[in-house]
């Protein structure tokens, strides 16, 4: 297993004092007074999971959801690879975004993380990761990492990204490991950096002017009005501090990582290696505190993209969408379940990496909230999303159970609670109806 050593020399040349500190804290780009960083990541795959009916021969082994809920649940073969992480994860059933329940589930890649109401048209809204990145992104050089196996944004209703910005616009996902590595750890070209600098500087100038403008207006107002204007001032100050931080990163040294430990010669034609490298990049980005927020769409919905071919390449017979429609065939459920198992293996690998990564005596996993799942249970049924929530023990998450809902419940409940545990203030998320306190200690 590769391990990522920061080049201490680079850093120590500059500071000369950091020797006594645990290694990652010293290397961290975070302000020293900050608590240990919290992190968030999400992994999505399309087309749902194999859920054979009770009488079916494959029911016992290849039913993604465990057959019993509570703490004594038994993982079926579909999720068996996650067994080592039982104490660090919760299997969740019966959650979905209410406004999409009646839509064909193939749309849910668009709204899995946003919960937007797309019944009328496909106007999306901010996704959970981007909401988190608005805050966490201030502390890192890269505000968030948006990855997918296919890359880009794809088409509306079948996006190949699961991240959406504040205006609901799809954020293009990166899919080329080499380019991702270069961007994260080898820095932008000089001219890119110069133009970025210029943009930030002009933003600063603008905001500085406006702050002065607001202050002079404030002097002319009555007291009650001043309080209202203070919200303008505070907002502007925060916008300014975001710009300042962004400028700060420009000049800083990049963490040095050992490229040879990473297999960058991969392509989606070899799914196992490719996905592992993508996961390695995420772990590396977390370890070096290059970013604290990441999403990865492992597979898109429907038959979209190169990722649909993954199960075929792996020898499970068909493309992913085809598998999801092939349950009438002999071994249909089993084949689909085998691919579910493959995906669970990948997630398990990621969790293992985070669990073995140590940050100042703490497992990285315990400060990281990781969500894994799909937006449909079976192919077209946008209810009862198959979900695994892992990590975040230090953030107050309690694990070790399969929590099934008696009635379908808004996924926004869980998202809101996740936001709160990540210390992001929010009153609501999408059409949540409350919070999800069962997941808390």
């Amino acid at each position, binding site marked *: 297993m590769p391990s990522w050593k920061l080049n201490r020399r680079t850093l120590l040349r500059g500071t000369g004092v950091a020797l006594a500190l645990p290694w990652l804290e010293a290397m961290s780009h975070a302000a020293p007074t900050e608590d240990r960083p919290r992190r968030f990541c999400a992994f999505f795959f399309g087309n749902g999971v194999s859920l054979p009916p009770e009488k079916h021969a494959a029911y016992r082994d290849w039913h993604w959801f465990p057959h019993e809920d509570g703490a004594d649940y038994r993982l079926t073969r579909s999720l068996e690879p996650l067994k080592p992480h039982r104490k660090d994860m919760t299997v969740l059933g019966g959650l979905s975004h209410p406004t999409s329940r*009646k*839509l*064909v589930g*193939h*749309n849910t890649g668009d709204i899995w993380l946003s919960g937007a109401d*797309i*019944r009328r*048209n*496909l*106007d999306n809204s901010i996704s959970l990761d981007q909401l988190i990145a*608005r805050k966490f992104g201030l502390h890192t050089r890269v505000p968030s990492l948006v990855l997918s196996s296919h890359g*880009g*944004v*794809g*088409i*509306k*209703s*079948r*996006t*190949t990204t699961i991240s959406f910005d*504040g*205006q609901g*616009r*799809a954020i*293009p996902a990166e899919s080329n490991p080499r380019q991702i590595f270069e961007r994260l750890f080898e820095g932008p070209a000089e001219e890119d950096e110069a133009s970025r600098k*210029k943009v930030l500087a*002009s*933003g600063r*100038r*603008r*905001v500085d*002017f*406006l702050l*002065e*403008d*607001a202050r002079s*207006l404030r002097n*002319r*107002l*009555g007291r*009650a*009005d001043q309080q*209202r*204007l203070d*919200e*303008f001032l*505070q*907002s*502007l100050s*925060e*916008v300014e501090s*975001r710009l300042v931080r962004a400028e700060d990163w420009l000049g800083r040294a990049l963490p040095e990582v050992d490229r040879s430990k990473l297999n960058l010669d991969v392509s989606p034609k070899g799914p196992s290696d490719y996905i592992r490298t993508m996961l390695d990049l995420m772990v590396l980005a977390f370890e070096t505190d290059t970013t604290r927020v990441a999403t990865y769409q492992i597979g898109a919905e*429907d038959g979209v993209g190169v990722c649909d071919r993954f199960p075929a390449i792996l020898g499970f017979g068909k493309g992913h969408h085809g598998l999801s429609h092939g349950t009438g065939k002999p071994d249909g459920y089993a084949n689909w379940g085998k691919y579910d198992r493959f995906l669970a293996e990948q997630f398990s690998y990621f969790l293992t990496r985070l669990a073995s990564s140590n940050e100042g005596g703490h497992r990285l996993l315990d400060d990281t909230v990781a969500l894994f799942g799909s937006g449909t249970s079976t192919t077209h049924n946008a209810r009862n999303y198959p979900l695994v929530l892992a990590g975040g023990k230090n953030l107050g998450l309690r694990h070790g159970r399969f929590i099934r809902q008696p009635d379908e419940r808004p996924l926004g409940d869980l998202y809101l609670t996740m936001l709160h545990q990540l210390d992001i203030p929010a009153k609501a998320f999408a059409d949540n109806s409350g919070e999800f306190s069962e997941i808390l200690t």
Partner: protein
Amino acid sequence: MEASIPFSRVAPVFQKHCHHCHGPKKSKGELRLDRLNPDLINGKDGDRWREVLDRLNFGDMPPEGEPPLALEDRELLTDWLVQERRRAELAKNPTTHFRRLTRREYELSMQELLGLNIEFGSRLPEDGRSRGGFRNNGEMLRMSPLQYEMYLQIAEEALEEAIVIGPPPEVHRYRLERGDKPNTLTTTSLAKPENRPGESFAYATDNRPAFRIWNMSGEKKESTGELPPSAIRRFSEAAVKLPEHCLAIGFHRAFRTGEALVRVHVCRTGTLARQEQDVKDTRRAGVPVLQSAPPRPALLTVAFGCTNRHGVELTPVGEPVVIENKDFQTYELRVRMESMPLPNMSPPSDRNAAVLAVWNSARMRKDDPNPPKLKVEWIELETPFLETWPPASHTNILFTNHRGLSESDYAREVVRRFASRAFRRPLSDSELDRLMKYWREARQNTDTLESSLRDTLSVVLASPQFLGLAVARSSGGQQRLDDYELAARLSYFLWSSLPDETLLKLAEKSQLRNPKVLAEQTRRMIRDPRSWEFIAQFAEQWLELDRLERVTVDQRRYPEFDEELAAAMRLESLHFFGEVLRHNESIFQILNSKFTFLNETLADHYEIPDVSGPHFRRVSLDESHHRGGVLTHASILTGTSDGHDGHPTKRGMWLLRNLLDDLPPPPPPNVPELDREDPKVRGLSITEALAVHRENTACAGCHRRIDPWGLAFEEYDAVGNWQRDGIGAELRRRRTKHPVQAEAELPSGVTVNGMKELQAELLRTKNDDFRRALLRKVMAYALGRSLTLNDTEVADSLATTLQQRGDRMGDLVELVVTSWVVEITKNK
């Protein structure tokens, strides 16, 4: 609200029933009512009084075993508490002047300043509603870093659109014609008109076009190319399918910004000779009505959009065009591409392409043997559409430098003109100096004057002085209106936008403060089409028309209810209010009127014949229609239903809160709503159901004052059908055996049966309350804040004059505006 109740009237009741346990001898629950300060405004016992009110409402005080409180006494106590709590609440409201522009106000101001018809506000989050129901209440108009970033970004992008640099872009111009056979399409390049800028984009070579254009219409084989009425088809899926009959084109290259011009050469086909034909209207049960059917026009709808995996997203361009002519004519439509749904930013494909669709959106009628048809000869598309280069938006800001000013003098003048319009007042020299300092730095960083001005003006558009409305302190330290602030308050009140030149001139000359001039301007502004903004915002928010969107109507019970009908319902109320305002009619028309506004869709719903076409027009009403006044508007009746049936409690609350400004106390916590589908009440009649609900929740006291009002609405069902006869009666028979019960004993003891009697009773006994309520509502909207005690008194004081002048709506607005005269600074 009832006349005010003095403490001296309630004190003896408290003493008699409560002090025994909560007084000098005993203080159960550590509560001594005799010690509570009856002054809820200045005293500190507000919270304890609230507890007292809750106990009284719950009915658990006095407890069993103690002499019971007579109903009148209990109501006297709760009325007094409600009244004092309301006053205390008003007294808490601060007199604020500064508020952020609403999303709509921001959008209109930006459009006006830049001369660009772009939906600038669509990206901003929706503004919240105050407790009084208004979205322009400063308390709710918050600011956040995210929102500020959006203002900065929108300003930057808007100025890039308004101020251009360099030569005009290439223009796509082409004509699309239906081929001789169905599903064929010919595309012809169009040459650039002599008088227009921009090179034509050579999209087609001899062999093939530069990008793919294809026919998406999917015509049937036997199609003649005529388009019968058709509609966008929704299916249980995101987005929509194209109308069954349409002319639709998909294309792989489209501009995401800028204006596009669509020209359609079209005529109406199908025989027109239906006007003499008598049609027996069989829909009105038992009563044959002879009506002459007017010729139905075809409706040309043009829409832009994009494809996705399932179908399309489409947004129609403006309102449908009425096509009556049998000869071909050319119609031009302009559209801002920014407002249209566009494909994702990824490589074009047939499922990620732009769409242009044209169809006939005349109402589809099952019983129409000869529907109006539309024949489209060709469609031309020009994008971007450039009338001049640079465009008017550019030259409006960067005026022609006739005087040969030096670059910095010119820039100073550009910035001065722009900023003083944006800030709605002249700039001081020092303000302008600061902006020019900013400009000089910007100029050093860029190659062109234009981009330095873009940069500088973007600061103006993100300034709190543009984004917010303020009243500055005068030298004496008091916040009083100066002439410009008065002009701005007036224009945002009636137009939701910047003051126009006339207002600014009057402000400059310090004439607007003259009450006569102010009144005259108010009347002018109401006459101006821009007052639609006041009509739409105020009436929508006051009457809570957005409830329509929140009700989930039972489609099985009311299959005719759809989005189109809901939209028509809303517009009836807006047009109706607009008419009362603009024609300066009596405010009591709102409670009952002999006219309303209908289009074909809504008239069908109301079973009123002879209304055809999509536009709204004034229609006279008589007794047989059972309509008149907002209480009978389907918008209100639907919004106050639960989607299955009318809901007396919701309807009663709506009436009290909005029309009478009477706020019954909120229900005690955890009380379920009356659910007519609840098995417990399902088989019961509405009066029985209400009785059960009251009994269950021990809230008889309040409900006795709410429910009867709503019960009188029972003649109308969940979508506003009259259910004593006609379609409504038929629908009712299908779901219940109970006859309509609309008889109610109002809190005053008077019994009314049905809407007509309710309206009469309101006009007879509640006219003062209604007048006062409306004055307060308009005042709150006009000031953009929760009314203070003083504001409330000012609004109330206008009632007498209003009454003397005949209670007219236009006068009411005028009185509200002229009441501000006392707030104006003495010295200019």
